[in-house]
């Protein structure tokens, strides 16, 4: 019985892998240890990189700033158009403030919540991801059904050392499974591990 070989960690210069990462995020153990044979039917869930919370929040602040700017622009125009009448501007302004306040509230409270709900696991059976606060979803991809995998890293994700792993299958309704918020190194390892074992000829 062979264990899948996990490639050595690739140090990405651009990634500032700090010491704050807990060892279990670079989980070679999480990928490799459980991948002998799926005798244990209990799924061993790994949580995502906690920096994901900061990342989500920062992205949220940027989005809120954009929305705010648009609102200021709209309000200015409204103000000019309805100049002597303060009523319209007042109502529109307070609605905008309410919306902004709601968005700020969401942006503060949602990311930690969704982080605590989301988890992934990779074992001999394959890859599993679970996420969602209100609408919850667990997705399983049997290992042998993985056609190919991508790791994508945007500029902002790079500054947080995060990456998005996309798993492609031959399926139709859900042919891609996107895993966001992984540590970049973990994503790279997963990418390689998931397509390493081709013990079959044709999945379809």
């Amino acid at each position, binding site marked *: *019985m*062979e264990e*899948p070989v996990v490639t050595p960690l690739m140090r990405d210069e651009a990634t500032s892998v700090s010491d704050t990462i807990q060892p279990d995020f670079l989980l070679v153990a999480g990928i490799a240890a459980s991948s002998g044979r*799926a005798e244990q*039917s209990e*799924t061993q869930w790994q949580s995502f990189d906690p920096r994901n919370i900061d990342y989500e929040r920062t992205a949220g602040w940027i989005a809120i700033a954009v929305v705010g700017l648009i609102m200021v622009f709209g309000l200015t125009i409204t103000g000019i158009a309805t100049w002597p009448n303060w009523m319209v501007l007042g109502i529109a302004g307070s609605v905008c403030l309410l919306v902004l306040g709601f968005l700020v509230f969401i942006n503060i409270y949602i990311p930690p919540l969704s982080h605590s709900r989301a988890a992934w696991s990779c074992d*001999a*059976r*394959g890859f*599993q991801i679970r996420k*969602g606060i*209100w*609408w*919850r*979803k*667990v*997705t*399983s*991809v*049997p*290992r*042998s*059904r993985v056609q190919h995998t991508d790791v994508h890293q945007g500029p902002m994700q790079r500054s947080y050392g995060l990456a998005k792993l996309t798993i492609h*299958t*031959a*399926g*139709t*309704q*859900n*042919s891609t*499974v996107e895993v966001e918020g992984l540590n970049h190194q973990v994503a790279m390892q997963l990418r390689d591990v998931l397509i*390493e*074992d*081709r*013990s*079959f*000829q*044709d*999945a*379809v």
Partner: protein
Amino acid sequence: MPFNENASESDPEHAGIQLAGNQVQLAGNQVAASGELPDSSMEGPPVLAPPLGLQRLHPTSFLFEVASQVRRNLIPAAFAVFFAAKDGGIWFVVAAFATLVALVFSLIRYFTLRFRIQGEDLVVDEGLVFRRHRTVPVHRIQNIDIVQNPLHRVFRVAEVRVETASGNEPEATLRVLAMSQIDELRQAVFNRTITNSSLGSDNLVLGENSGEVQEDSLADRLIIVIPTSRLILAGLLSDRGLVVVSVIAGLLFQPDFRGKVSFDAEEWIKRIPDGVSWLAWTAIGIGVFIVFALLLRVFSAAWYLLRFHGFRMERRVDDIRIRCGLFTKVAATIPRRRVQLISVHRTWLGRYFGLASIRVETAGGAGGDSEDATTSVGRKWFLPALPESEVPRILAEIRPGLKWNEGELDWHPLSPKAGRRMVRFSFIFCLVIGAVGAFVWRPWGFIFGLALLPVAIWYAQKKAKATRYARTQELIAYRSGLLTRKLSITFFDKIQTLHLTQSPFDRRWKMATLAIDTAGSGPADHVISVEMLDADFAKAEHEAVAERAAQAIWQLS
């Protein structure tokens, strides 16, 4: 079993791809009669099949290419002509230019398209300025479909579509080839596939019947034919006629025709004498309705006859072959190891007459709603009419070793509260209908909602009871529907991903949805997505199915 045991076998060699492009001669001076130029570059594993030399399209291709372009652009062309008639001038130029472009492209395609089998690949080259060099590994070819309409038959040619698992479009469309060329192509491709599958791991997919491969190796075995009488019956029971009606309706609502029709209607009303009672009106209404319904059925039967006349299904080793058609003849080949999902549909009228129909899904090729002749025959209309008693036998033909007994499966019902949840939903539905009715026709419109309520409740309860889920060592089955009962089967080795979802409402009712995705592209019109399962049961099933699906491949390798 270790993962990479068979790794060496699974990688076919694609050497010679880069070289092949240079061998293509573009000018028309190398007109090769079929099979004149055998390609000597036989690389890779030794194969028994004869090599297929450089081939080109049949000379009449040009004609059919133009015809196809015209048909594809019929609607834009009609618009152009319409506008031209209205505004004149510029639109005529546009239409003429579009036609010219289509003609030029057809000509280029005809003169530049070449294909051959080289080593283990089908190689297709085309293009003048932008050259397209396409290499399709022969063992990846899912099927070769053939369409032959009456005009094709005059010239003894047919349109060929080579399909692989990717995308919604055929990998290569060869329009048109001489019948002798097609035979050569099919032989070259399928002989290779057979050699491959009996050497490679695919053989194991055949399961218990694998011994049969030697037995009837190359003989066609008849599976089923549909007699014309059954075809007509199935047509009469179906509402396919709606397709014809929608086409007619579409014509009537064209701007040109509408004026005339409404004018006619006014004339008709004027002609009716005044003193006709409402009773007579009702009688006329009912009469018209009955005539319309009958016509619909007749249209349906005609459509069935046109499409499926002389339906014949055969099996040759691993390939199921279907031939049918009255004027336009279609031949489809479906390797049965490629079947992702089998779906048995039983309409309420069909059940009364003991008829069912079977659809199958393969990867790629057939786009979901395609009504195109080849893609729909063979997938969506895999077997349009068969007696109920034949279902188990046919299923065993599609999936070797499958012992199908629907009654013996351990059918698991939905959550016990599912009926109540559906009933609550129909309450809300009827409330909305009633509210809308009351708003439109105050205050008595509410009656509509009220009248609908008992029906809706009955329907909800029945529907909840009719939805079932079953799992065995080999397969997952899901059936649903009240009037048209659909039963779909997929196998663990065909499961691509599986999902367990829970909405906030689901959580309140302690329910969950279990969905299974295969590579089938949707012509069965029945997705395995079981809603309102008991949450704990769904979770346990999700784990069990994931486990089993992961193992299914190991068994095959």
